[in-house]
């Protein structure tokens, strides 16, 4: 299988889905590479992260739409077109800016099916580069998925590797419901094997990336990478870990988590968000409620602190939950008697 980057895997998914279904269009700031410049020719760079690169020359500006800086309207336009039969794929340049588009995301797209008694669907995809790790400070580094996950009507996706990035984005575009798709900025350059052509990863099905009997580690997005980093040392010391990549926080693969905890009796949840009302808390409480009889140790939540994301390198490094914190948490619960 070809080895490509997370960025290119997403790009491949967009190319394939736009070729497959001409209802699909993308819109967002600079997604075409910048309209209206003085050079005449657009670089088709596909915005500052390059995920939409090459779509413009292939599909034309009707379907690859550069927009003004109007986040709420970018999502609203994509949602409105999707109500009307299209498949809008909106890009919000940084997940932090979902705060500007939240009305169209949570009060409109997420609720149309319900408010219309099931008569109107809104199959829009909202792509949001997210996360810390690039010293972009408090307003360009937030994870934000705890907000999307809390909203009934939305589906929430966080690929942790190139193959899932492609397979989950293709599934998102084909989904009949609104999807908020979180791409970690610091993972765009990561490489991995990705199947060419048709490759779909279904929602609500976690991936068991490592098997072990002692501790269940649940993670999502970039936290999966850090959990994998932590594994080596743990396994070496004979700590058996079930590593579960939940892939989608909504729907959540509850069975995968409960089955594992039933075996291990010990749970560590790793989440890039601050702790309050986080996905870590959500999963921790779910297990404390539905898997209580299996639990042999306190639930461990490894999250960012209750603080905004700092700018300086050392501060940000201390802020983001990393392999060391995961390693320590796993050892704590493993040792708990």
């Amino acid at each position, binding site marked *: 299988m070809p080895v490509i980057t997370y960025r290119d895997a997403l790009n491949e998914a967009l190319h394939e889905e736009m070729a497959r279904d001409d209802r699909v269009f993308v819109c967002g700031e600079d997604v075409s590479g910048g309209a209206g410049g003085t050079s005449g020719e657009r670089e088709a760079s596909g915005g500052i992260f390059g995920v939409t690169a090459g779509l413009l020359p292939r599909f034309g500006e009707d379907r690859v739409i550069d927009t003004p800086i109007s986040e709420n309207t970018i999502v*609203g336009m994509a*949602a409105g*077109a999707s109500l009307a039969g299209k498949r809008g794929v909106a890009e919000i340049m940084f997940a932090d800016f979902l705060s500007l588009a939240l009305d169209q995301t949570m009060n409109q797209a997420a609720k149309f099916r*319900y408010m*219309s008694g099931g008569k109107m669907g809104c199959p829009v995809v909202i792509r949001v580069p997210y996360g810390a790790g690039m010293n972009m400070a408090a307003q360009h580094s937030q994870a934000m998925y705890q907000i999307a996950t809390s909203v009934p009507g939305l589906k929430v996706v966080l690929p942790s590797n190139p193959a899932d990035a492609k397979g989950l984005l293709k599934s998102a575009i084909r989904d009949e419901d609104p999807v908020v798709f979180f791409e970690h900025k610091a993972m765009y350059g990561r490489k991995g094997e990705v199947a060419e052509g048709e490759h779909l990863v279904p929602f609500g099905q976690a991936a068991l990336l490592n098997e072990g009997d002692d501790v269940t580690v649940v993670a999502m997005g970039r936290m999966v990478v850090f959990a994998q980093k932590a594994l080596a040392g743990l396994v070496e010391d004979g700590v058996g870990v079930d590593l579960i990549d939940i892939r989608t926080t909504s729907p959540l693969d509850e069975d995968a988590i409960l089955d594992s905890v039933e075996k291990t009796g010990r749970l560590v949840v790793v989440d890039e968000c601050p702790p309050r009302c986080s996905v870590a808390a959500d999963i921790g409480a779910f297990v404390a409620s539905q898997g209580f009889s299996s639990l042999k140790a306190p639930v461990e939540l490894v999250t960012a602190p209750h603080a905004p994301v700092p700018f300086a390198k050392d501060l940000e490094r201390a802020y983001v939950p990393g392999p060391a914190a995961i390693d320590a948490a796993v050892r704590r619960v493993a040792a708990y008697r």
Partner: protein
Amino acid sequence: MAIQQSEDQLLRAYRQMKTIREFEERLHKEIMTGEIAGFTHLYSGQEAVAVGVCEHLDEKDLIVSTHRGHGHCIAKGCDVKAMMAEIYGRATGLCKGKGGSMHIADFDKGMLGANGIVGAGGPLAVGAGLSAKLDGDGRVAVSFGGDGSVNQGAVLEAMNMAVVVKAPVIFVIENNGYSEHTGADYAVGSRDIAGRSEAFGMKAIKADGSDYFAVYDAMAELLDHARAGRGPCTAEFMTTRFFGHFEGDPQKYRAKDEVKRHREEMDCLKNFRERTAGVLSAAALDAIDDDVLALIDEAVDEARAAPGPGADDVVTDVYATYQ
């Protein structure tokens, strides 16, 4: 200006306006009984706008409505009985009782929903217009909004966006002078909504929203423009609401006689009868009045008799599929 429309067209337009009027006047009474729950915003007084706009549209054209949406729904062809049932929160309602007055939607009629969020319809309408542009079939999208909605960032962004993507969208702004209790002359800087829209680079017209013919003619011009692919436009229609912002509003902010005066001077039904005096027989119009009253009676009786939704319905229709 001479009347261009056929007698059938005129009778149809009158029937639509009258249906909206009686639907709302009846609701006004029924709400007093306490049988109707929630928040209801009545459209009485603004009928000429909804009908003058929608008489130009067919089911393939798309409209996005507001919290004050009953008139837009009826004008776009939604079933009056199913609407009434929805407002009563019945399983037989257009949205199975899940949406209510502020969320009536009927995709089959090109009615993308009333909306509880002021201004949210703007961006959605641009998207609906974009879909029409991509299909290239001459369809248009109409975004209904009030004078208060043009102070909402979403609407202002949407106007700019529509110009940038050249979407066939008509922003129909119904200026009834108030957003809830606040006067438009206070809240709308410059007090000129058409001018504000023009400044985004689109064509804009201001016209009398209590005169069906003024609305109809203004829309004819704007629709030609939009259907020809020449981009979005705005129509600002000056109108008035005959009731409070929502049912129960004491309206102390309005001059004592304002509503009374407007009911006399700005009643689109009265105006219509006068304007068509030579063309339509009073008898024909009276007959329509009787039909409409009968229809509304039936609608209320059927809604009252209809079953409510079951508690299980609370968790259905959230997703098409979920796990």
